[in-house]
């Protein structure tokens, strides 16, 4: 199964929210949809979920227009909540049947997921007796009820403690391994980096970067190195390198070295050793996802 989003356009009144959003994600893969607040992540997801129609563009699955009712979809909306005064199990069964499960199957599935979430004690409680994090786990259980082929998680980690976040990560990874499509929207980069090989960065309604994290990192200059040096020798090293006519910068106690050619690297390093500066290690500089995110989203603002 391949989910393709092509040229989505959407305006609310005069405010243009989406201006040509494109991305593709296949079964067994996850896509991290990244963007700053108001970049259009939730709008994109809502259009995919047919909450409202796009002004232009289309959503395709395997090349055919996507119709929500034809697929099993799990959706964890960003703005989420459940009926505060109804029993949790009743609500899960209800949501399951709305998505086409039989009541018996919905109940079995709800109990299974409640067990998985460690919430068996709350099965016959009302939602408003639960903490925010536990409510969120119920929401996740609701999204998983119908064994979705396409799982859409909009900011799933907000409000979860590290233990619960770990649980969620395990579940999401399982989904990916089972061949589901996971569409993941967040601005918590560390989580995205953990299980999204593929990212799409949205900025002002446009996709400004659509790539795999690995491939993108490779696009950075391989001549930009980071040196591991014993504490207290960084300044000395920087001065040494600068004295050799090389570009070397000291950033937050780390020496960044720009070599003229990758072939020059080892000679320079051995030169440093010869000069009595111990080099414990070096690596090609790769920005963190957070760096990439900031780079691509701060420009136009």
């Amino acid at each position, binding site marked *: 199964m391949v989910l393709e989003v092509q040229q989505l356009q959407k305006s609310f009144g005069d405010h243009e929210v989406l201006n040509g959003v494109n991305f593709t994600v296949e079964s067994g893969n996850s896509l991290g949809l990244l963007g700053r607040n108001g970049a259009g992540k939730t709008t994109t997801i809502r259009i995919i979920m*047919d*909450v409202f129609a796009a002004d232009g563009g289309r959503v395709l699955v395997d090349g055919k227009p996507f119709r929500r009712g034809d697929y099993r979809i799990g959706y964890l909306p960003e703005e989420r*909540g*459940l009926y*505060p005064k109804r029993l949790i199990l009743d609500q899960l069964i209800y949501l399951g049947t*709305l998505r086409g499960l039989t009541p018996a199957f919905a109940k079995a599935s709800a109990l299974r997921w409640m067990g998985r979430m460690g919430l068996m004690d709350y099965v016959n409680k009302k939602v408003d007796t639960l903490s925010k994090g536990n409510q969120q786990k119920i929401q996740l259980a609701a999204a998983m009820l119908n064994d979705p082929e396409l799982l859409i998680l909009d900011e799933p980690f907000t409000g979860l403690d590290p233990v619960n976040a770990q649980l969620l990560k395990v579940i999401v990874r399982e989904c990916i391994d089972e061949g589901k499509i996971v569409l993941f929207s967040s601005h918590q980069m560390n989580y995205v980096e953990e299980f999204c090989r593929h990212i799409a960065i949205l900025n002002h309604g446009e996709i400004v970067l659509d790539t795999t994290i690995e491939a993108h990192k490779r696009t950075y200059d391989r001549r930009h190195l980071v040196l591991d040096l014993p504490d207290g020798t960084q300044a000395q090293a920087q001065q040494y390198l600068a004295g050799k006519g090389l570009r070397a910068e000291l950033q937050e106690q780390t020496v960044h070295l720009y070599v003229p050619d990758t072939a020059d690297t080892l000679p320079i390093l051995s030169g440093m050793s010869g000069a009595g500066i111990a080099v414990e290690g070096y690596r090609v500089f790769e920005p963190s996802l957070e760096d990439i995110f900031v780079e691509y989203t701060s420009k136009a603002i």
Partner: protein
Amino acid sequence: MKQFQSVFRFEMGGYFKSKIYLVMTALFAVVLMIVLSFPNIKTLLGSEEEAVQPTTITQVDQLMADTVSGGDVIALVNQNGALSDEALVLLANAMGTSMYLTQEDVQAVRDAVKNGTYAGAVVIEDAQTATYIAPTLTLDDETASVLYTAMTGVTRYEMLQSLGVSQAETEEILNPPVSVNVENLGVSQTDTFFYTYIMLMALYMAIMIYGQLVASSVATEKGSRTMELLITSARPNSLLFGKIIAAGLSGLIQMAVLFGSAVLFYHINASAWAGNAVIASIFNMPLPMVGYVLLFFLLGFFLYAFMFGAVGSLVSRVEDVSASIMPIMMCFVFAFIVVITAVSSGNADSTLMIVCSYIPLTSPMAMFARVAMSMPAWYEIVISVVLLLATTVGIGFLSASIYRMGVLMYGKAPKPAELVKVIRAARQNNA
């Protein structure tokens, strides 16, 4: 259809698992039971008080007997012997209450009325003039008019006697054996009034309460942010219609329980209510009327519930519901006041009522009142029902459009002009 059933079942569960719904229904049934069993309960408690009928008086001495003096008695002062003994007896009988002919002077009697020795006093000043002295003139005190009638009768009697008419002839002239029959070609409003009133109240309450429940239920889903999950799992029409039909059915079930228990307890206590015309007129409501109540409840309920549902989808929080449904409520309260006023005045066919019985917002109550209280032609009923039905269907579709757009709009409720835009946009989206 399956989604609709799920929504319907879940919403019905909401009512039948709600303590308020169950307790209120049970409470109403218990109140009806107590009210309708009241005559029997009273007998059981032995507190039944036989109204003391004053015995017919034949001689003036009886008016002066000690037994009639005391609390509930009206004192009678015959100043200067203005009336003959015979006339006094006539007067006392015509008054229909216990009277005591006293020799005290007017001032003494006045004091005695004041301190409660007598319930009141009648002072005969001359053959044509009498004064009624009351301790307090209560709202339902009819003594003065009864006295007027009695004095008129006594004076006529005296006049006829003085003209030399015999005793028997005088009796006949004063009480001529006339009889009047009524042949009613229409509706007897004394029979229809009470049940019409009760049914109107029931229509009003049911539509109001259940309509508002729809509005606040939609707003709750929105406020708790359950909506996004629902709207992405089911079609908006299933959600709205399932919810509204569940509310309507819950209302209907509650009404059925109430009317059912009323009929049940009436029949259990039937013997105690024998002879009570009002109660009998209520429970003798003809069966077709039940059909009309049902018809107008369903149509009226759906019309208003659709509007309430649409409004509920436009507000962001439950707290805003009551302010936003105000205009609709005003409409409905206006309809209720017009109809109740017309029913109370017995003129169910006034121009206003006729107009109201065709306007869909007012017709559920107005047309029902006309059907119950007068005899509109069959085509009038058909036109009214068809108009109402068509409007309800139209409003239903419109509401579904608004609902679809409204459920995910947060922030302040849109102004009417913005609303029109929303509806237009919704139409385009649906097309």
